[in-house]
């Protein structure tokens, strides 16, 4: 269908918080009738792993709301990252925010096309069998093939 609207996303981040924007926008766009393709590159590829182990950290992110003021050196202590990740997941659950896994599943159900950056896969010696089924592999030209006809293109 040539009159269908299209959205192309480049997703570059591999943290729990930054996994949300591409999945939220892609699933919603699909629900609105868009054809959606996400090109996952660099750390974004973590979001395609079958076993997601996405973490969140306040380090280097002074904008993160903290339950209590905490010096940066304390934030850097061992175990802090997993604690923050756990707290973030709990908070999201209590606020009715979907898990990344659920949003990803909704995207796949809605036929959002996932393209993994072949160069990154090679660069980090990633194993394609660690990724969810249905992922395609390609490069910049593959992205432009779709993005060139897209109504919306986002870099996240």
């Amino acid at each position, binding site marked *: 269908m040539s009159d269908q609207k299209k959205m192309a996303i480049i997703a570059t981040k591999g943290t729990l918080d930054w996994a949300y924007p591409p999945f*939220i926008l892609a*699933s*919603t766009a699909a*629900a*609105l*009738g868009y054809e959606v393709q996400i090109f996952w590159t660099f750390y974004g590829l973590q979001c395609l792993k079958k076993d997601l182990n996405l973490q969140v950290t306040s380090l280097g992110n002074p904008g993160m709301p903290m339950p209590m003021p905490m010096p940066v050196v304390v934030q850097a202590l061992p175990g802090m990252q997993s604690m923050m990740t756990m707290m973030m997941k709990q908070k999201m659950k209590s*606020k*009715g*925010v*979907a898990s990344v896994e659920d949003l990803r599943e*909704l995207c796949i159900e809605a036929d959002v096309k996932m393209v993994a950056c072949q160069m990154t896969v090679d660069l980090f010696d990633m194993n394609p069998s660690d990724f969810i089924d249905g992922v395609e592999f390609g490069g910049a030209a593959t992205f432009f093939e779709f993005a060139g006809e897209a109504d919306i293109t986002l870099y996240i």
Partner: protein
Amino acid sequence: MANFDQELDASGLNCPLPILRAKKALGTLEAGQVLRIIATDPGSVKDFEAFAKQTGNELMESGEEGGKFVFLIKKA
């Protein structure tokens, strides 16, 4: 509130789940049938307006009932 054919309780769910669930529920309806949606996400008020406008499904009613937001959407 007018009659409806199916009800979707999206209470407690946050963006974008009410929209995604509504889209799925509409998929099971026939054209002309009405879906009633209950939500607690304040953002859903504007979102369902936008959803209706973009998908062509008609937002027949949008209101508040007992502290919750209630929408009626007729499938196009």
